[in-house]
């Protein structure tokens, strides 16, 4: 039975897909992807600072706002958090880890998503207030700030503090990858239960050319190469059946990873015990474990997972895969303790992050349609304000903080009133926040997918122009007429389809969440009703936005 289950798991594992799986198993796979994006970032920085300051003619105007945004939302839909996997900001950050001690624990009072929520709010406001989409120069500054922030923060603090607690792009991906079809997870929990080393979290130590199980075979034949590992896995499975199946399920950071005799503590961190690592004297770290403190054995879902694949590289038993799953499967595990995250239904900060991103999907799209200008003019007149950033600030506070707070509180109160129970409004809101992720992803897909589909080919003339400016017009004269990759008539139906998919998955997720707490289907439906109303209202808002004429003005007032 276990063998059958193992075979099924392996069949649904991206690591077993020819070519792709082989590439992802390669130790330098992530670095190579990061290097490609670093080169692209260098182009963006160069053209943004020194190139023509007209966004449609500048790589900093085209690549981030048309292509990158389109690619990442499509990746979230069809795969998972691929941007974090190939994040270019991680290369200077890795350098910082080598250069500086990077041994300080992240301050306890900001060990949550609140700081990232603040950064996200500022970013969304700045995007509109300073027309980042129309300014290659400011776009380059944003990218440069990112590089510096990742370098500085991770040069000071241990682990991947920047990714986990600060990076707004990362938070976007963490949240929306909760409905992605791929998840990095353990293949056979039994093996982890008996694993003596927990390399997936602690990292693997040894001489540089460590003769570990993973590297013990030099044969290019996978079957030959895997023989020692298979023998070890068989041994562990036998051992695990004899002992408690979840004996090792606790985070190794707790009591079971105390330094043993002959070992020295290399990172002592009572505040972040998951990284408390005992290193045998004379050895060095040859493969990092998870730097976001997601211990594989207790890891649930994609929250905080950057798809860095360190755990896959570190596991000596090849017991971690990138596995296919149902997009709503994560919503069945909200009450489960998540390693490195905690219990999601108790994370008000995560719920707030989710709601900010949900409403931002609609406010961000609202910023590009004609009615926003009418509203802004009206607001400016009513308040007697002439400063556009101030008016936008008010709109963003209302749209991303006040309005969500009121609507969510009303939905939580109504839900509780319909079915009773003693759960607090905050707990109810936190629980149901996750049901909104699919409709949010649908909206982001409709919006960013629209820009990508109508502008995907614009990178060709911009690249032609870029090279021509360098005196190497090897790609010929810029063909500025290139733009869309699909007929324009497809766009609105496609956008509505994405929104419809989003609302359906959201309602399904909402029902699952409600059903997990209610004794009958009827009670679950009553419990869900206010949330379903809000989800459907968001759907109609999105549909209305997508059918509005687009308008892009740098100056709104006056």
């Amino acid at each position, binding site marked *: 039975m276990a063998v059958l289950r193992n075979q099924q798991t392996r069949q649904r594992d991206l690591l077993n897909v020819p070519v792709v799986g082989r590439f992802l198993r390669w130790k330098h796979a992530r670095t190579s992807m990061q290097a490609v994006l670093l080169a692209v970032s260098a182009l963006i920085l160069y053209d943004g600072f020194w190139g023509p300051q007209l966004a449609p003619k500048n790589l900093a105007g085209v690549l981030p706002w048309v292509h990158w945004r389109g690619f990442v939302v499509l990746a979230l839909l069809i795969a998972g958090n691929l941007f974090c996997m190939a994040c270019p900001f991680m290369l200077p950050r890795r350098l910082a880890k080598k250069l500086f001690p990077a041994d300080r624990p992240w301050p306890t009072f900001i060990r949550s998503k609140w700081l990232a929520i603040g950064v996200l709010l500022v970013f969304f406001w700045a995007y509109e207030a300073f027309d980042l989409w129309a300014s290659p120069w400011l776009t380059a500054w944003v990218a440069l700030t990112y590089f510096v922030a990742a370098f500085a923060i991770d040069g000071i603090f241990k682990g991947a503090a920047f990714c986990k607690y600060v990076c707004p792009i990362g938070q976007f991906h963490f949240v929306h990858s909760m409905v992605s079809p791929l998840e990095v997870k353990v293949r056979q929990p039994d093996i982890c239960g008996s694993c003596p080393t927990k390399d997936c979290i602690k990292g693997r130590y040894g001489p540089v050319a460590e003769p570990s199980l993973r590297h013990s075979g030099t044969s290019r034949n996978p079957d030959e190469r895997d023989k020692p590992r298979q023998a070890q896995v068989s041994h562990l499975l036998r051992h695990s059946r004899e002992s408690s199946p979840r004996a090792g399920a606790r985070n190794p950071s707790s009591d079971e990873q105390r330094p043993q005799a002959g070992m020295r503590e290399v990172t002592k961190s009572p505040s972040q015990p998951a990284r408390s690592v005992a290193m045998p004297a004379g050895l060095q770290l040859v493969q990092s474990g998870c730097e976001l403190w997601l211990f594989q054995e207790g890891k649930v879902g994609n929250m905080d997972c950057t798809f860095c694949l360190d755990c896959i590289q570190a596991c000596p038993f090849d017991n971690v895969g990138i596995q296919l799953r149902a997009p709503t499967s994560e919503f069945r595990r909200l009450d489960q303790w998540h390693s490195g995250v905690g219990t999601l239904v108790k994370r008000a900060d995560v719920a707030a992050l989710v709601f900010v991103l949900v409403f931002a999907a609609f406010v961000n799209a609202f910023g590009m349609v004609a009615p926003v200008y009418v509203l802004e003019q009206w607001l400016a007149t009513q308040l007697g304000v002439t400063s556009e950033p101030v008016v936008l600030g008010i709109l963003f506070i209302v749209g991303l903080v006040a309005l969500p707070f009121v609507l969510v509180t009303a939905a939580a109160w109504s839900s509780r009133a319909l079915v009773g129970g003693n759960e607090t409004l905050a707990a109810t809101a936190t629980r149901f926040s996750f049901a909104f992720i699919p409709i949010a992803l649908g909206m982001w897909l409709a919006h960013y997918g629209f820009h990508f589909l109508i502008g995907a080919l614009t990178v060709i003339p911009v690249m032609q122009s870029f090279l021509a400016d360098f005196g190497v017009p090897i790609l010929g004269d810029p063909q500025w007429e290139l733009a869309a990759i699909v007929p324009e008539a497809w766009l609105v139906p496609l956008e509505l389809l994405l929104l419809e998919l989003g609302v359906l998955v959201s309602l399904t997720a909402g029902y699952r969440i409600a059903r997990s707490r209610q004794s009958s289907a009827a009670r679950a439906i009553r419990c869900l009703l206010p949330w379903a109303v809000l989800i459907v209202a968001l759907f109609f808002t999105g549909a209305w936005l997508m*059918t509005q004429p687009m*308008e892009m003005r740098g100056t709104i007032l006056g």
Partner: protein
Amino acid sequence: MNFARTTCVIFIAILGALVLSACGPRAEQGGNLDVTVLSISPEPAAVGDAVITLQVRDIAGNPVSDATILVKGTMTHAGMQPVIVGTEARGAGKYVTEGFRFTMGGDWVIIVRATFANGATAERRIDLKGVQGEIKMGMKSDKPKDGN
């Protein structure tokens, strides 16, 4: 100095160079062409068909009447198909666009490209802010959102 420290110095040096050199965006090249928009019909500019009348002069102020003038209309944001049209010369440096269309409300940039008889080219950029859009509450636009 080990490799890591050398790399760090290089990285910080590049960063410093970027910061120092990025204190202001590069000035736009005007080219040796003086272009004035005489009129846009309809007035004010709005989404839909439009006729733009241009006055083209060289840097000495002399009307340019024997050039081929192409007009490219694009917006301040990336990702849309530009509107590229030819013009008809009306004498004394006046040119009128043929088949131009504002496809979206917002801030436009009109790029006028002149090709002279000797093959030389010159470009001039004109900012045209606040092309009026159309607002339809709850109705699908019968005009394209973007591109053509």
